[in-house]
């Protein structure tokens, strides 16, 4: 199968991409706006020797995914808001057990059942972890179908290199868009990693192994956490990803991810044509947060504007990264018929801040 360009819903592009990169087992439970991922994977996986497995709940989904990961093989899941909440205990378990997997949160409005329309209100849950304990998962922000295609090999590499769940977040608006994406030739990245040193597939080639995320002694709990801490420090140092533009002389720095980031890229270019000194940082990794992008802020910088489809969640990370060197403003909303800040709204706020 050579390179090809397809016109698909971005949820379908996600399914297509993960399967073409080596995911053979996709565990899922229907939930809007993520259901099209499982619908599509159910159709295409058998030809790749895999299966979409529809489980009876997101609890079962996450745990079947953990079981799959124990064999060393790559599994994935896709869900949204309430489903993501149900999976949190097992995500904590998988982080503690150091099990690789891919997950997609096609984010919708919360809290509670919230609304099925797209949002970015799971930023805290994704980056802080809704589960218990001192753990982190790598979080990658998608803003298009193409970004899923482009980041999929990286995600698999991260999952196996660091033996960790990797979580994609895609706001439900992006998830529901239909657009073209160009897929490279399929390649099974997942099979390139040697899992013989840790998988739990019987004692034929190794002494007894057992997966323990609890502890029988207090020192075991301490050692587990110290090992995880050391790993997370390496990830923070090596794996920050972002796009930045116009930082050499920006008076206004806009920070946004996902579809709002995609809009801000276009807006900044337009405002530059109007001689307005606007720059942007669009994080690709939400954890580790790209603090390094903020290391050298322009001398001219007057203000930082954070735009999100929520009530200010990434805002906390921006403030930590800026660390008082510039004042920060926020523009955001969640829900409604137009559940994001429009270009006109962002432009008006940007101009107001530049003139202030």
């Amino acid at each position: 199968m050579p390179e090809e360009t397809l016109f698909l819903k971005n949820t379908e592009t996600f399914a297509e991409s993960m399967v073409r990169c080596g995911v053979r087992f996709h565990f899922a439970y229907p939930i809007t706006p993520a259901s099209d991922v499982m619908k599509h994977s159910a159709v295409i996986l058998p030809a790749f020797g895999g299966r979409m497995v529809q489980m009876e709940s997101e609890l079962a989904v996450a745990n079947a995914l953990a079981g799959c990961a124990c064999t060393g093989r790559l599994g994935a899941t896709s869900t949204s808001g309430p489903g993501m909440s149900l999976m949190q205990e097992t995500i904590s378990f998988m982080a503690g057990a150091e099990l690789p997997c891919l997950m997609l949160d096609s984010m919708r409005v919360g809290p509670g059942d919230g609304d099925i329309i797209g949002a970015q209100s799971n930023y805290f849950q994704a980056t802080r972890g809704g589960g218990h304990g001192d753990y982190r998962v790598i979080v990658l922000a998608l803003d298009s179908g193409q970004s899923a295609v482009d980041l999929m090999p990286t995600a698999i590499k991260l999952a196996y290199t660091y033996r960790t769940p990797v979580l994609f977040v895609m706001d439900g608006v992006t998830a529901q868009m239909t657009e073209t994406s160009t897929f490279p030739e399929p390649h099974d990245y997942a099979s390139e990693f040697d899992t013989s040193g840790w998988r739990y597939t019987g004692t034929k080639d190794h002494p007894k192994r057992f997966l323990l995320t609890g502890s029988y002694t207090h020192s075991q709990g301490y050692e587990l956490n110290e090992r995880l801490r050391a790993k997370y420090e390496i990830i923070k140092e090596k794996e920050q990803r972002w796009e930045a533009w116009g930082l050499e002389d920006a008076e206004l720095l806009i920070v946004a991810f996902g579809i709002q980031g995609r809009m801000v890229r276009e807006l900044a270019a337009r405002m530059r044509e109007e001689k307005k000194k606007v720059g942007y940082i669009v994080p690709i990794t939400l954890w580790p947060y790209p603090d390094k992008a903020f290391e050298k802020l322009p001398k001219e910088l007057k203000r930082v504007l954070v735009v999100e489809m929520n009530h200010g969640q990434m805002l906390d990370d921006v403030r930590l990264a800026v660390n008082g060197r510039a004042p920060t403003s926020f523009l955001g909303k969640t829900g409604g018929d137009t559940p994001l800040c429009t270009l006109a709204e962002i432009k008006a706020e940007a101009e107001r801040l530049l003139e202030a």
Partner: protein
Amino acid sequence: MENTQENLSSLYGKTLMLDKLFSYCPGCGHGIVTRLVAETIEAMGIREKTVAVVGIGCGGFSHHYMDIDAIEAMHGRSPSVATGFKLASPDNFVFTYQGDGDMGAIGLADVLHAANKGVPITCLMINNTVFGMTGGQMSPTSLPGQITATTQKGRDTHLHGYPILIPEMMRSMPGVKYLARETVADAPAIRRAAKSLRKAFECQEKNLGFAFIEFIVPCPTGLKKGVKESYVWCKDQMLNYFKPTIFKDETE
């Protein structure tokens, strides 16, 4: 002959790890079931490709006494973990080892759906009618009137319902190929339980579908009884409600 580990290994084989000190309390039924499981694995010659998915609770200790790979799942989720595992690695023998709290309370949905799907795994529920590890609280299988840490005047069926009969719930599921309730209350029963276990693992060997055994066992500590007394109570009281039965055997 001295009872050295080597001598014992020549009798019992490699699966049962005789050098491990038990963390089960004296008289605990888990000890018997764990040994039966180890002996079944040994007899079938499947030690190297068997993987245990154990629950949270005293049953979680079981794998420490067997020289096999093991996964300690989150509370109640062993059947779902085993489902994902078996799918990705079908050549492994996968069994779950869970208590009545782990399987009958928090994990009921997981085991019933695994059974209904006919997932080719072996699920074992060791039912001692209490949450043992946490200190003898009422479980879904506690008997009517049974005094526990959380039912100090006895289990009131108006408030708490009746003890849950899990094999009876699985009877109508075509995906379930071997289904039994056994006990370790006395020696003849232990011999019957051993035969049942063999069938439940053979079910997986033949890739027939789901296999399930509930073991009725005493928990002297949780039941606040002496060892002998707890076995008498198990036989007289528990078996009166949880009747040992082979509900289904489609292994032939």
